[in-house]
């Protein structure tokens, strides 16, 4: 690739410019790596050691921190709660959003543009605006403090972004395929089911991962909608660990064990699918 532009002085030799680029970019990227490694190391030390030797490598890992967090602080339960509510939400989200996105990108009807814009508008609604009304509505529906209620809200707030990205994806599929399928005798829904849906798989997978990561990390809605400890999601569990840690003598090591448990699934997904996630975000963000 050709050099597009450079902010470094022109008279600098190219080699120096490159070295500077590597140092700046590499430094910042390295910090990401450092962050993960340091947290994992910290989670394997005793709190005392963490304070006295924050840089050391734990050669005698204290796995007890994990046992304590997983069992006593009930991260095992929270992990399952998160897995359940996030997976089901993403599933329902895809089931309702994919057909809608398809119709909005391929259907020809008068209100199409209006409905599209109406859905996009939802991306601009600030979540904190919904705190109180959602709490009230959930209470009225008997869904307050339930994972299913939280899941429904997760689906609803994720619909705009998901439909938007999928709509773009469907629009990028060649329309001749649709014609071909119709010639082959497909009804409307058969075109969707046999032809467009399989072709949209990469796009669907992308939004599924993005939503999974986003909801896995979601905190504010869970904070407002979930009250009972047994219904806590992992991020709520993390917050309660932060606050309860203070009452149990500053168990920072256990806290970092919690941080590790929270971040491992999403980092693992990211390791394998970073390109797909990044392209999905730029699709939704910039398009």
């Amino acid at each position, binding site marked *: 690739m050709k*050099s*597009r*532009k450079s902010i470094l002085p022109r008279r600098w030799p190219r080699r120096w410019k490159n070295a500077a680029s590597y140092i700046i970019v590499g430094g910042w990227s390295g910090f990401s790596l450092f962050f993960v490694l340091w947290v994992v190391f910290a989670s394997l030390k005793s709190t005392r050691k963490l304070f006295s030797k924050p840089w050391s490598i734990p050669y005698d890992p204290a796995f007890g921190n994990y046992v304590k967090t997983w069992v006593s602080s009930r991260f095992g339960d929270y992990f399952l709660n998160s897995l359940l509510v996030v997976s089901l939400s993403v599933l329902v989200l895809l089931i309702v959003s994919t057909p809608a996105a398809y119709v909005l990108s391929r259907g020809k009807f008068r209100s199409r543009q209006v*409905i599209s814009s109406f859905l996009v508008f939802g991306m601009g609604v600030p*979540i904190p605006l919904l705190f109180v009304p959602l709490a*009230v509505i959930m209470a009225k529906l008997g869904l307050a403090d339930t994972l299913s209620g939280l899941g429904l809200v997760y689906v609803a707030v994720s619909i705009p972004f998901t439909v938007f990205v999928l709509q773009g994806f469907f629009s990028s599929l060649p329309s001749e395929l649709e014609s071909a399928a119709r010639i082959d005798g497909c009804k409307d829904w058969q075109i969707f089911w046999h032809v467009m849906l399989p072709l949209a798989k990469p796009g669907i997978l992308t939004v599924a991962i993005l939503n999974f990561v986003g909801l896995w990390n979601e905190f504010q809605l869970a904070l407002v909608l979930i009250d009972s400890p047994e219904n806590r999601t992992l991020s709520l569990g*993390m917050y309660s660990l*932060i606050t309860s840690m203070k009452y149990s003598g500053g168990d920072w090591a256990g806290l970092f064990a919690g941080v590790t448990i929270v971040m491992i699934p999403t980092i693992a997904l*990211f390791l394998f699918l970073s390109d797909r996630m990044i392209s999905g975000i730029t699709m939704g963000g910039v398009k």
Partner: protein
Amino acid sequence: MMRRRMILVFLMPALTLYLCFLVFPAIQAFYLSLFETSGFGDNVKWVGLRNYSRLLTDHIFWLSVGNMLVILLAGGAAVFGFAFLFTVLLNSGIWGKKLFRAMIFMPNVIAAIAITTFWSFVFMPRYGLLTNILKSIGLEDLAKMAWTAPENIIWAMLVGLVWISTGFFTILILSGADKIPIDMVEAARLEGANNRQIFRLITLPMMWDVLLITLVLWVVQAITVFEFPYAFGGPEINQNLYTPSIYLYIMGFGQRDPIYQLGYATAIGVTMFLMMVISVTVLRLLLRWDQVEY
């Protein structure tokens, strides 16, 4: 031709959920903000716009707005500065662009709540990582700084917030830069344009739409920011970290102290929404909203 019935069946589930749990609550917020209620019993009292007039003189609210502006402006300058720097450097022909891009973006896939824990430890006075580093390189005076003292704490928080956000905005701006056809830059170079001219005359105008969208995204994020400062503040969050969202939560749901002013809290939400709409409109007017087609 798609049949009307299928259009309906395909659209309905998504629209219903969207209406019930996003649009309706958003609209209800406007209504709720005209009442005074604790949400406990049935003591719901109509107060009209009184919640709003109270906001005008509520200096905590204005404190939170001030903090929000610090995040919006100072944070924004840092985030966009870094994002541009990385875009330029990543596109300067260095090896491993994709890898670096992924690494810079990575904090975004980790729960903010988990990340705050790390940053709390970094900035902890006396025992924290930062103090440790400063001590080890002999900067004893700086090492004694209380990074989380009231006047500093928002800046300490902002460091973490900028760290996360930079990754997000870098990939957006980078993708905008990558959209520019390379032949266009080459054509300009053949015509004798230097790097600065290429940036000013080609890159910038061609990225204008992406820039505007990212700016709008930042403004929206900065106005509604909640979880990172909230978690950074811990269970007894300092008012120096309040953002309007946090103040809303405290007024509506309380921490340990029982404050249950649902109507007032919602009025904060509505005000935030209005601030968002106004700033996005102003942005659109200030920076002409014409897109480049190519």
